């Protein structure tokens, strides 16, 4: 008896190492947050101006933090949605279409039912979430029932979504002017606009789903070993479809915040979300092969990407360099936060 239980676990010895790696994305974020003020300091120093590092930094300020958060919240919602899918070892590329459709339908319903949150138009919000869920559900069905790998299924569903949004709008953009709805952006509590708090609440909900619900834990089970999970009696197909549905809901929240941010819903609302969100998820330390990571990683990843984007403009990096620098920093961030001992190979 003792022989079995006393055997030291092979992984236990690396615990400290693993812990460091687990926290690397956060360290990268902290490093970046301290790096950009350094360049500011350098610039002012070169110009012979008085400059206290951090204290005089424009980048390292509450107001800029609010700007970064505003820019990050819609992407964060989308990235959280796709995090669940990536934990399952699948991938979802349908977000651009889903976000556009949700934004457009929300705007139509909102305008059509009164145009202000103080009327029945508030119902447009649940409608948008339902539309997101429905699109995710269809995406999951196509993937699971037609047995098409999620990469292809969701890519094609993304085309369908964008196409649907285009069909609905005929190419027009819809302005959502309601002051009450726009208070998402315009009203600030403790320096941060309401949309940041909405995102924070959604983040907590996502964390709750991830850690305290059966569905959330099942994502990890599917990502850790789908066949094994199936053999244990888990209805893997159901978990998958529900995962895509859940992702759809978060995409819809992302769409609402995106509309809240610029007050316009259009076919292009979903543009650029795909690569940004997946990059963020990976940069945050969630592995593309599934089973590892979670929503907090995604928060850090989204912030890393947005801090880089904001910081590059703030330090006045020439525009043509920005893409390349982003690319290199992303590679560095992923390299640092990958546990090379736990990965046998990467594709």
């Amino acid at each position: 008896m003792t022989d079995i239980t006393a055997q030291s676990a092979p992984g236990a010895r690396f615990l400290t190492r693993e812990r460091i790696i687990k926290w690397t994305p956060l360290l990268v974020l902290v490093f970046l947050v301290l790096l950009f003020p350094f360049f500011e300091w350098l610039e002012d120093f070169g110009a012979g101006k008085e400059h206290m590092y951090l204290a005089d930094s424009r980048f390292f300020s509450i107001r800029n933090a609010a700007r970064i958060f505003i820019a990050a919240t819609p992407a964060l919602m989308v990235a959280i949605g796709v995090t669940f899918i990536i934990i399952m070892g699948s991938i979802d590329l349908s977000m651009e279409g889903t976000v556009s459709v949700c934004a457009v339908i929300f705007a139509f319903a909102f305008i059509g039912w009164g145009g202000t949150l103080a009327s029945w138009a508030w119902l447009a919000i649940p409608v948008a979430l339902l539309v997101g869920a429905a699109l995710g559900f269809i995406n999951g069905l196509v993937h699971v029932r037609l047995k098409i790998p999620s990469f292809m299924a969701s890519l094609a569903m993304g085309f369908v979504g964008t196409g649907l949004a285009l069909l609905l709008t005929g190419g027009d953009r819809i302005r959502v002017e309601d002051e009450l709805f726009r208070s998402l952006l315009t009203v600030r509590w403790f320096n941060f606009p309401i949309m940041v708090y909405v995102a924070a609440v959604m983040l907590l909900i996502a964390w709750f789903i991830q850690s305290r619900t059966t569905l959330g834990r099942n994502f990890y089970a599917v990502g850790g070993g789908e066949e094994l999970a199936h053999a244990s009696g888990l209805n893997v197909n159901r978990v998958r479809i529900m995962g895509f549905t859940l992702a759809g809901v978060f995409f819809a929240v992302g769409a609402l915040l995106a509309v809240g941010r610029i007050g316009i819903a259009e076919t292009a609302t979903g543009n650029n979300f795909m690569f940004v969100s997946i990059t963020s998820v990976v940069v945050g330390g969630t592995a593309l092969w599934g089973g590892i990571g979670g929503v907090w990683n995604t928060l850090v990843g989204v912030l890393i990407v947005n801090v880089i984007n904001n910081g590059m403009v703030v330090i006045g990096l020439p525009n043509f360099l920005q893409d390349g620098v982003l690319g290199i920093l992303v590679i560095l961030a992923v390299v640092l936060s990958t546990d090379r001992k736990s990965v046998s190979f990467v594709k």
Partner: protein
Amino acid sequence: MSFERIKPHFPWITLVVLILIVGIANPSFFDPAGLLTLVSDVVPLFIMALGMTFAIYIGGIDLSVQQLANLVTVIATVYLAEFGIAVAVIAIVAGFAIGVISGFVTTRLYVPSFVSTLAMGFVALSAAKFLSGQRALYMDAELRDASFGWMFGNTAGIPHELAIAVVLLVVAWFLQTRTTFGRALKAVGSGELAAIASGLNVDRVKILAFAISGVFAAIAGLLFSVKLSGGDANLANGFLLLAIVAVLVGGTPLTGGVGGVVNTAIGTLIVMVIRSAMVYLEIDATQQQMVFGIVLIAAIALTIDRSKLRGVVK
């Protein structure tokens, strides 16, 4: 013939069925000259997809191809006057180099190719923006014709573009099926661990796969640049997703080891037919994208051979 035996033939059957549908709805589609033009126009996309096939065949993906082609259009346009036909060499070297770096970052630094190639694409984009001075550039017509005029002539009714595509397809096919490298690719795609345990230099094989993808992307960019007689940092935009779609629809799934370059040829033709069907069947402008997506789902559902997707479908 049993269902199982027909399965591997689904990609081209799908192609033929699609052609028939479009052709029956609008017989002018069958005009041989028209078809020939359609096919030769899809050549740059095809070449890019051909390279992408190698990345997908080992179970990876290459998202840098579009930006790489952008970079090459700029390189070709900027240096045509100086180097003449030798810009082709510069372009190919650039493609090879960026592919090698992507491969290196993927294999040695354990960054998934989805991210590493995307990031390397950004680097290429920066280079393209820098070189082009963020302007659209155009080639001197005489210089272009002197160096690359041969790319776009016709011999016996066959556009040279198409001939180039066929040559590249044959080269790629030969690489894939007849060389040790191709065999190693297949081993890496189907069973990477077994390839390692057989003493293959798996990292080198993977890096080479990305390098080949880069080279083909560069050739595609060069061809496109010459065709359009110019270059800028966005010229090749719109290629990426279509190239991926072409590979996937042809029946090379992302799991690796299955499919290949001939499938990609079929896949590219399927994409071409679907796309021109929009024109031939007069699909309403606002509906085109949705129709494209739905037909795509149907085409993929038909063309992937699920029996070869070992294990679970993720």
